[in-house]
């Protein structure tokens, strides 16, 4: 990889690991008076925030960079780490650059977290979006449009521009570009996994959570060009799909470990909200309607989005087949209920299709992985020398 791309990735790592949200602070200095809106994973309509002239900031927890002093007492046992580290970031001032926080109903813990935020941060705008879970209903699109309009009105109160169709179209276009670049990078990796490290792709992608999307687009285009040119030799590896990390993110070292242990990652669901739509959101016609309809009909499957027309366990098997993967690696955050529930039907379907899988549980704050390393290595060996 050319040095330029290496530097870029290094820059991304620094951004991702900066708990102080330095990039967000910088943006606010350059845009005095403009608000920054954090969103708890997985998905939020960033286009609306962008079109209002505000900065959407994707939050993915604090990893192992923050000790819990207060949040444990608020959320107690059996609750995943990201809920606690996000609250801890708030209670200790790290989220101060954010003027608002958006949540949605991804799980019961996240939903309650939204309202705990509301109590503890009365100076911030805290909102909860209900993203429809019944796309089969003819009523869901108009409901979602109304929900987006409600959000837009709140953003206006925060000093955002009044929602206007042309601005929204422009925002959709720049996010379409962002998603297309990511799709290209993902396709490149799936076709030539030896050419791009998953850990690099991960950092490139996640840095976008904190950057203006236009900047991120420039960075992604540069990386894409460099990586496409890269010459590297394939090695014996197991080709896997990673599933289950759509919300709390595995530590970077764990992602590296999986690769080092001999896995080529053909697809993953890290920071899934950045690649939420399977194709461009249409920009002709009513842009708000297009955004809502895309959510209902052109979204990736996810354990936190329910669409009874298309069952997730079938879609996982289809994906494995389409990519020609050898196996599935479930990387599931401790106490992540949606991922663990889905695992049961995923497992059943994979077994019926004779696709091997391995389940690993992680915590974002973990920093030693000896046991996990052994498990991945054993798994890889069993597949390579089968």
């Amino acid at each position, binding site marked *: 990889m050319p040095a330029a791309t290496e530097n870029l990735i290094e820059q991304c790592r620094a951004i991702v690991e900066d708990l102080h949200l330095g990039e967000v602070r910088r943006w606010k200095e350059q845009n005095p008076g403009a608000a920054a809106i954090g969103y708890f994973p997985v998905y939020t309509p960033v286009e609306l925030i962008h079109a209002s002239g505000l900065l959407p900031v994707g939050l993915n927890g604090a990893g192992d960079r923050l000790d819990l*002093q*207060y949040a444990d*007492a*608020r*959320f*107690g*046992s*059996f609750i995943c780490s990201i*809920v606690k580290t996000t609250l801890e970031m708030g*209670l*200790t*001032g790290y989220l101060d650059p954010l003027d608002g926080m958006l949540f949605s*109903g*991804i*799980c*019961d*813990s996240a*939903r*309650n*977290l*939204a*309202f*705990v935020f*509301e*109590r*503890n941060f*009365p*100076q911030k705008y805290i*909102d*909860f*979006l*209900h993203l*429809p*879970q*019944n796309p*089969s*209903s*003819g*009523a*869901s699109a*108009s*409901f979602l449009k*109304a*929900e987006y309009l*409600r959000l837009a009105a709140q953003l206006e109160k925060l000093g955002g521009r009044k929602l206007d169709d042309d601005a929204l179209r422009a925002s959709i276009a720049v996010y379409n570009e962002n998603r297309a670049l990511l799709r290209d990078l993902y396709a490149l990796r799936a076709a030539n996994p030896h050419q791009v490290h998953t850990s690099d792709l991960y950092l490139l992608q996640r840095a976008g959570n904190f950057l203006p999307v236009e900047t991120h687009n420039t960075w992604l285009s540069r990386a894409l060009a460099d990586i496409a040119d890269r010459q590297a030799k394939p090695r014996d590896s197991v080709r896997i799909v990673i599933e289950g990390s759509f919300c709390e993110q595995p530590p970077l070292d764990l992602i590296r470990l999986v690769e080092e242990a001999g896995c080529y990652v053909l697809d993953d669901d890290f920071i899934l909200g950045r690649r939420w739509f399977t194709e461009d959101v249409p920009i002709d016609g009513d842009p708000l309607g297009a955004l809502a309809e895309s959510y209902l009909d052109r979204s990736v499957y996810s354990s936190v989005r*329910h669409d*009874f027309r298309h*069952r997730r366990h079938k879609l996982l098997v289809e994906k494995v087949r389409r990519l020609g993967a050898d196996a599935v690696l479930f990387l599931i955050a*401790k*106490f992540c*209920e*949606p991922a*663990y*529930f*889905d*695992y*049961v*039907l995923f*497992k*059943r379907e994979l077994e019926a299709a004779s696709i091997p899988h391995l389940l690993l549980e992680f915590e974002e704050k973990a920093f030693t992985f000896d046991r996990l390393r052994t498990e991945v290595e054993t798994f890889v060996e069993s597949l390579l020398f089968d």
Partner: protein
Amino acid sequence: MSEAPRSEYRGQIHQQQKDLMLHWYERLDESARTGNPPAVSLMISGNCIELLEGFGAVPLYPEVNALQLAIRHQSLDPILAAEELGYAADNCAYVKADIGAMIKGITPAGTPLPTPALVLCNFVGCNTYVKWFEHAAEFQGAPLAMLDVPFLRTAEPRAEDIDYVVRQLHEIVRQLEQITGRRFDMDRFREAVRCSARVEEAWSRIKNLARRTPSPFDAYFDAITLMGPLYVYRGSPEGVAFFELALKEMEEKVARGEGIYDQEKFRVVIEGPPPYPFFRSFRDMFATWKATAVASTYSTVGGLWEFGFRHDPDHPFESLALHMLAHNVTNRNYLQRYEQIRRYVEEWDADGIVIHFVKSCRLFSAGQGDMRDYFTRQLGVPTLYIESDLEDPRYFSEAQIKNRMDAFFEALEHSRSIGTLRRGAAALRHPAAGAGNAPVAGERLKILP
């Protein structure tokens, strides 16, 4: 304090409750054998039983099945069977018990349960429900439909929320017509809504009787006994007769000045579901101290009526939507639950709060530490926090819970003896704080390191 005093009222309703539930299982059995009446799976939270009455369908409530297994100490086997299928130790044990029992062919009454004509996922608050019903439909090979109820994220439901739910209700009606081959009977539906309104009126009055000192019944443990008929029979004349009788019996108790114990010593509000596998021992821990639950959030899972909401036969679909959107504890947001508990303390004259953290249920439990912080630090109400599970017997440590409970009530007793125990409005240091949707903020803890 070794002997727990008698803590149960046994009137006519006790037997009638049993008969009604038995009759329900008979109908389910009939449905299993003949397909008639058709069965429809529903979740308890904000259930729309009235809609089923419009089809003469019988509800199948997996939660009731799960809790029956736990009360009868039969939940562990199915939970283990489910874990073998891949369910995690930390998944809601209600789901595991239900799915495990399904796989092993265990049923609460011993008679087979029907395959539902439709697994109707009334998604009212709990995300786990959605997973549960997806899995149940998969393992039963039954059709699955979603009824997506927007979470209450504003003070009142919005017009768009109501419209979305009403339109989905109509879609479900059409779908059920197709599946069952029966026509939806609008008159019968309206009649069911009328019955519900009467049941709700009686139930709400019963709950309001617990404002009296002594309270004639326990609004946690006794309320749970009444919950079966409330969810299965709310939309039927049997339900009306039952709840009007229950009201009469309770009013008679009040007239006689009769509480649960010879003398009611403490009045508490309980938050969270009960530990069903240890229901009896748990109740005894309160009885030992002659403590009555005067209100509980758990008894409002299926519907919250004591603050005035009733179904409306003149607007049947809209009132179903409103009930699901805003008038049950599970679809109301967390701060609205704080406010519900605060009102209970104030208006039902309580001495303190018992928060029962349930491992299985993040809907109830996630954030209960913050809730405790609000009540103890901000409002100054004595609050006990204990942990176990509602279904999985492996997470109940009897000695530990009993110690904590005893210490809590000893402290209340001590405060009373020195004259500092305050009750009701007086127990709230800032009775006005926290009114409305946004309680006063917690203090800021620390600035950036």
